[in-house]
């Protein structure tokens, strides 16, 4: 509980002012300090108003605080608490650990046996929800339960596969691939070439016939060095 010296002289700190407001600086060793504070408060009316407000709050708090019960009032309460013997949390020592595990196992086995017996007697077989969904017709939404509906799956006629990567063709579930099976090649009498435009470098592809199947062959630069005679189709 001190103050500090500044350009305007000694100034009490907040803790010291609080002690003064609470009446802790009475006559005696702290009497000089109290007089010093009162002199400072006389020169600082705003601080004096705050100290006075703090003093009134302290007085109101002391006036409204109920008095502590006397020691004699605590004795019967303590006696009653001791007489209750409240149970403390901890392991139940009446059953050993192995006994409890054994009882739990027997109970579980009995439940499984009971459920199996009831299921056999009633002749009921639970169908998994996914299996039920698969059993539904593929087109249209079909109800498989009061709160569930099977996802409508399109049929092959309802899906047109426009493009697919070669490695992904085996992953398609529904729909017809653009190419089913092997490529069936045109025969020579099934093709009529009507026009062939040259490329920008004047390269003109050839029509080659390996067997009966014609094909358009655009030679690489290396192949153009030794061109073959094109066949007419």
């Amino acid at each position, binding site marked *: 509980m001190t103050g500090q010296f500044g350009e305007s002289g000694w100034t009490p700190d907040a803790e010291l002012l609080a002690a003064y407001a609470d009446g802790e600086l009475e006559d005696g060793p702290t009497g000089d300090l109290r007089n010093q504070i009162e002199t400072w408060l006389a020169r600082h009316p705003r601080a004096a108003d705050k100290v006075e407000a703090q003093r009134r709050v302290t007085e109101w708090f002391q006036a409204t605080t109920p008095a502590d019960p006397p020691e004699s009032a605590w004795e019967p309460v303590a006696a009653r608490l001791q007489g209750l013997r409240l149970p403390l949390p901890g392991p139940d020592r009446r059953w050993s650990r192995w006994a409890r595990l054994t009882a739990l196992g027997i109970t579980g086995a009995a439940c499984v046996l009971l459920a199996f017996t009831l299921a056999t007697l009633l002749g009921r077989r639970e169908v998994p929800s996914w299996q039920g969904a698969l059993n539904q017709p593929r087109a249209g939404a079909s109800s498989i339960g009061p709160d569930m509906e099977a996802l409508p799956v399109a049929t092959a006629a309802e899906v*047109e*596969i*426009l*493009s*697919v*990567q*070669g490695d992904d*063709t085996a992953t398609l579930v529904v729909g017809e*691939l*653009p*190419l089913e*099976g*092997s*490529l*069936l*090649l*045109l*025969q020579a009498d*099934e*093709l*009529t*070439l*009507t*026009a*062939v*435009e*040259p*490329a*920008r470098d004047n*390269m*003109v*592809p050839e029509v*080659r016939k*390996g*067997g009966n*199947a*014609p*094909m*358009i*062959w*655009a*030679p*690489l630069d290396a192949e153009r060095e030794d061109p073959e005679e094109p066949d007419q189709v």
Partner: protein
Amino acid sequence: MVGTLFTPRLAGFVVLVSCLAGPDPAPEEPKRVKVTVVTILASDKGDEVDARLKGIAAEVRKMNPQLKAFKLVSMASKSLAVDEKAAFPLVDEQSAQVVIRHSADPNNRVSLGVTPPKQGEIAYRAVCGKFLPIVTRYQTEGKERLILAVRVQPCNGK
């Protein structure tokens, strides 16, 4: 005068003629041709041939035995009307342009034009349901030769 001309017999005749004539025929929808393009990469490395490509691989090998491995990269189809152009993506940002010049003629042949990468247009007429192989001059960085196979279908209900 009018009552004399418009007899019940005449009215019945008018109704009969109207019924026989029927409503105006609906305008015929333009015939569309389904074009399928299969993208193939052939290489001289390895000898694995996709089972679906055995026929074309055999034909190409007759021309270039060094091409031993044939991989089916993709397959795509588009339904095109006459004079409608379509681009089919291939590999490495390359594409092939296809245009239908004429739908199936009485001989069940379709005229179309195909423009492979780095080439001019190839115009031809072909029967439906079979592929024309086009060995392009495009090679990937791995020296794989790009091959197209083009098919049109169906024609006249077939």
